[in-house]
């Protein structure tokens, strides 16, 4: 009996070599291309390295420098602000657009496609188009002039008071269409009977939204939130293409500061330390979100 049991168990749990290969080969590739460079990054964050000589081990020196680094502080604050503004606005505007465009009407497909179109373009191309619009004699200033708001004309990307917000706009312009599509899918999944019942009960549109739409969109919200958090923390291309974190660090994000420190100032050790901080932040935000999500699922 015991023998039979063990044979059965081993037959049931033995992994066929093909399956094992399917797991191990990608894992090896991943280990080589992802885990290994990441480990190197951790090691480099403990060194001072100019990319040419051998790295000098400095322990936690880079991290203690960060504590007194004003640019790091600006970049960290901007990254949090970016997360809130970019994240919050793209969710709100995406949901708004989805609500507006959910009903099948004549020509609605055109509006949906128009809003989704920016998602198709590469972010660098998007940034270049916006750069032309933000130029001192570009479209935005010309329009302001034409409608009698010449006093509002501005060097949008060259002014430290406006650069950060000017950079968020193209990022949002692109993200809203993506979020809208996610919400449209969610809205399609809501049973119309719920709304009919609510109408019979005399619920206003706002009440319908609050008590039917929002709770029904809970699962979509989870997807949107994770997409937004990940996209916020990896935002780099649009800022780099438009301002390179400038003028004088006013639109600096942790990602752009990491890049300029490492590859422009050739302080690769400090740049790696910044990369470690970004990793920890991203991991922290995502892990805390996952824990919360699991807890909600359990309850």
């Amino acid at each position, binding site marked *: 009996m015991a023998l039979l049991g063990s044979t059965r168990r*081993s037959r049931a749990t033995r992994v066929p070599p093909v399956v*094992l290969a399917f797991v191990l080969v990608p894992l090896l590739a991943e280990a080589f291309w992802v885990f290994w460079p990441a*480990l190197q990054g951790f090691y480099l964050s403990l060194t001072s390295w100019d990319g*040419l000589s051998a790295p000098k081990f400095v322990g936690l020196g880079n991290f203690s420098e960060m504590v007194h680094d004003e640019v790091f502080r600006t970049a960290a604050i901007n990254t949090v602000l970016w997360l809130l503004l970019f994240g919050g606005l793209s969710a709100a505007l995406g949901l708004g657009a989805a609500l507006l465009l959910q009903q099948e009407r004549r020509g609605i497909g055109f509006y949906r496609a128009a809003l989704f179109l920016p998602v198709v373009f590469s972010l660098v191309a998007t940034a270049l188009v916006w750069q032309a619009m933000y130029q001192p004699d570009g479209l935005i200033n010309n329009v302001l002039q034409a409608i009698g708001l010449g006093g509002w004309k501005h060097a949008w990307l060259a002014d430290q008071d406006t650069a950060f917000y000017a950079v968020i706009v193209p990022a949002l312009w692109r993200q809203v269409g993506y979020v809208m599509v996610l919400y449209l899918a969610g809205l399609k999944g809501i049973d119309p009977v719920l709304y009919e019942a609510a109408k019979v009960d005399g619920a206003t549109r706002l009440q319908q939204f609050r008590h039917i739409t929002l709770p029904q969109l809970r699962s979509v919200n989870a997807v949107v939130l994770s997409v937004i958090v990940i996209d916020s923390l990896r935002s780099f291309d649009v800022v780099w293409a438009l301002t390179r974190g400038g003028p*004088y660090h006013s639109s600096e994000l942790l990602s752009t500061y990491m890049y300029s420190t490492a590859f422009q100032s*050739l*302080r690769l050790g400090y740049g790696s330390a910044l990369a470690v901080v970004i990793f920890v932040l991203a991991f922290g935000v995502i892990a805390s979100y996952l824990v919360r999500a699991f807890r909600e699922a359990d309850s």
Partner: protein
Amino acid sequence: MTVFNATRRRFLVGTGAVGAGALLSGCVTQTPSTSGGKSGGPVTLQSNLSSPQAKTAMQAVVAAYDKRGDARAQLNTVASETFRTQLPTYLTSANPPDAYTWYPGSVAESYAKKDLLLGLDDIWEKPELAGYSDALKKLCTSASSGKKVFVPTSYYWWGVFYRKSNFAKWGVKEPKTWDEFLDLCDKLKSKGVAPIGLGAGGDTPWVASTWFDYLNIRVNGAKYHRELLAGKHRFDDPEVRKVFDKWDEARPFFDPNGTAIPFQDATTALLQGRTGMMLIGTFFADAAPKDALGDLDFFQFPIIDPKVPVAEEAPTDGYFASARTKRVDGVKELLRYLASAEAQELYLRNSSGTALPTHPDAKDAGTPLVLKGRKLIESATDVTQFFNRDSSDALQPTADTALVHYLAKPKEIGSILTTWQRSAQKIWSQ
């Protein structure tokens, strides 16, 4: 289960051991390797000359080299900023591109010191390079090894450029002194023109450095300037403050869009007469339409203190090669060709033609503009290169931030200089 367990454990132990071993041996330090790479095939020439006219001229030179028959070269043109950030990676890789467009002096020295550049002493003895001036020989010799590591092929000058027709229209003339320069600015401003164009926005913030360079060599002299950039003085010293006091006098005449547009757009503004003049190197002409070239003129950056010996910025361009190249003979052959009068003239004919060849027998474009430029450099007591060429590529971003900040918030100059010194210190102490 046992089978799988054993495999997984062994795999994890194996990976861990490999990882730890490599970490301990510091494999991230990319120790020099002599393996890999092919010694045959064309010599690769990595070029940062990506503006249309310069790129065409490079293609013409390489095509002419290939046509000679015995050896071939392959031109890879890379955007300038990408090239600059990738250069350390190129040079430290095991199988690097063979030759590179770049700069001599302290920039080349930073690589030569680490044995990353190919020694070129033997080709300097050949006829193509033997007649080069002593100043060029010195500029291309590594201070640490005493070997020649660079082949210079052209140089250019910086000046305050303007359109002759516009100056005639506005009824103004070239100034000589600082006071005359400020008067000129006043006159242009009264005519509704932004007197000084800049072009330190977009991806060319480094253009602002030349104002710092010129004011510093006019106020404190070229020697002090070089020492400052080498870390022997501080950016928050009173001498540097004097530079900004002078800059303050000219700052109200700068184009307000100067830090919002790159130098290519600032060139357009100059050509269209929206700005009056621009302190820039002759390379800007590569971005200008050819029919406008005849209307361009320049004047020397005004003298501020007659007691200070007159220095000019005249950056030299040329080529160096990787010490790890597998095609040593081919690279030297290519560099010898590039150093020849024939190749330099070919380059000048196909580009905007505003640079000066380094070969004593090579003819320049011969235009009045070029003759004036040559005279400017030849009559200078001292010659500087440019901020990053006299310091390092790594120090350039610190200047970009400080100077663009100064132009926007001039009153904060005290804290700007303190911050600049702090950032520079981090680079110097590496």
